[in-house]
């Protein structure tokens, strides 16, 4: 794992991997969304609104997946002090928050025709909203850590601890539909089995794969940006110190 700790090696890897992930991701997600919009059948009970699922479900998984990535990277940063782990955690925050917001908005757009309401304060919806607020808090903390002239390392550790503690919300989101009475349906897909017909499942899985690759490409682009910013800042600081000493 420490083989990838070298920033120069990471940039060499990201330079070809990022466009590859983005290119394949856009092609797959685009194809799946066209499939879902024009070729997949309407559902017997939900009718045409079932098509919202091809945007909503991948967004929900990536919102939760993004925070899981933050928690794992934060753990690696705290335990092994891996230099790129903190950068990876910070890079996953904005795309994670974005997909959480898309999940909430598209869920609301599905709820209005299906449930007759835009929003209900039930366990699944509320815990997903809490996840969005956790992302906002994490982004603010990580921003403070990168901007701190002194004590930046301490602020980065606080952001990492916040990333780990916030992960307690992930199982709450997952099990909320089982623990509490909810308008939201229980999970249709679990590991190894699915209650969905192949007509709906296949485009959903293709859309999920496509959006996941896009997520990976965006995280690599963010990591390159954060890394380049910190290198530029370190160089400018060294120059300023050298001028001050002269």
């Amino acid at each position, binding site marked *: 794992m420490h083989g990838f700790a070298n920033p120069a090696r990471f940039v060499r890897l990201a330079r070809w991997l990022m466009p590859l992930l983005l290119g394949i991701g*856009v092609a797959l997600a685009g194809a799946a969304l066209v499939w879902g919009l024009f070729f997949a059948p309407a559902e017997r009970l939900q009718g045409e*609104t079932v098509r919202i699922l091809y*945007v909503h479900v991948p967004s929900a998984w990536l919102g939760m997946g993004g925070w899981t990535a933050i928690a794992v990277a934060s753990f690696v940063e705290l335990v092994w002090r891996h230099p790129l782990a903190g950068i990876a955690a910070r890079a996953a925050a*904005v795309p994670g928050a974005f997909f959480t917001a898309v999940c909430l908005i*598209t869920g609301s*757009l599905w709820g209005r025709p299906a449930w007759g309401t835009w929003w209900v304060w039930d366990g699944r919806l509320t815990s997903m909203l809490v996840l969005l607020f956790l992302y906002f808090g994490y982004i603010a903390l990580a921003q403070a850590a990168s901007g701190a002239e002194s004590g930046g390392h301490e602020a980065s550790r606080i952001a990492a601890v916040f990333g780990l503690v916030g992960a307690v919300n992930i199982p709450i989101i997952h099990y909320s539909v089982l623990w509490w009475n909810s308008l939201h349906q229980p999970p249709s897909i679990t590991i190894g089995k699915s209650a969905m017909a192949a007509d709906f499942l296949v485009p959903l899985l293709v859309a999920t794969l496509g959006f996941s690759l896009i997520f990976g*490409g*965006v995280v690599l682009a963010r990591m390159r*940006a954060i890394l380049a910013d910190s290198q530029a800042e370190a160089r400018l600081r060294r120059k300023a110190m050298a001028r001050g000493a002269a």
Partner: protein
Amino acid sequence: MRETLDPWIFVYAAYAVGVGGTALVIAWSLISMRAAERRRERSREP
């Protein structure tokens, strides 16, 4: 009485949010990456 809503309005709105938002996030991440890498190159100049 159950109100009748056109489901396609909600479907198109959801796709617009998902596709438009994803395109914006991709564009923002690439533009900010290029800007940061240009800043790093400029910082190398003496």
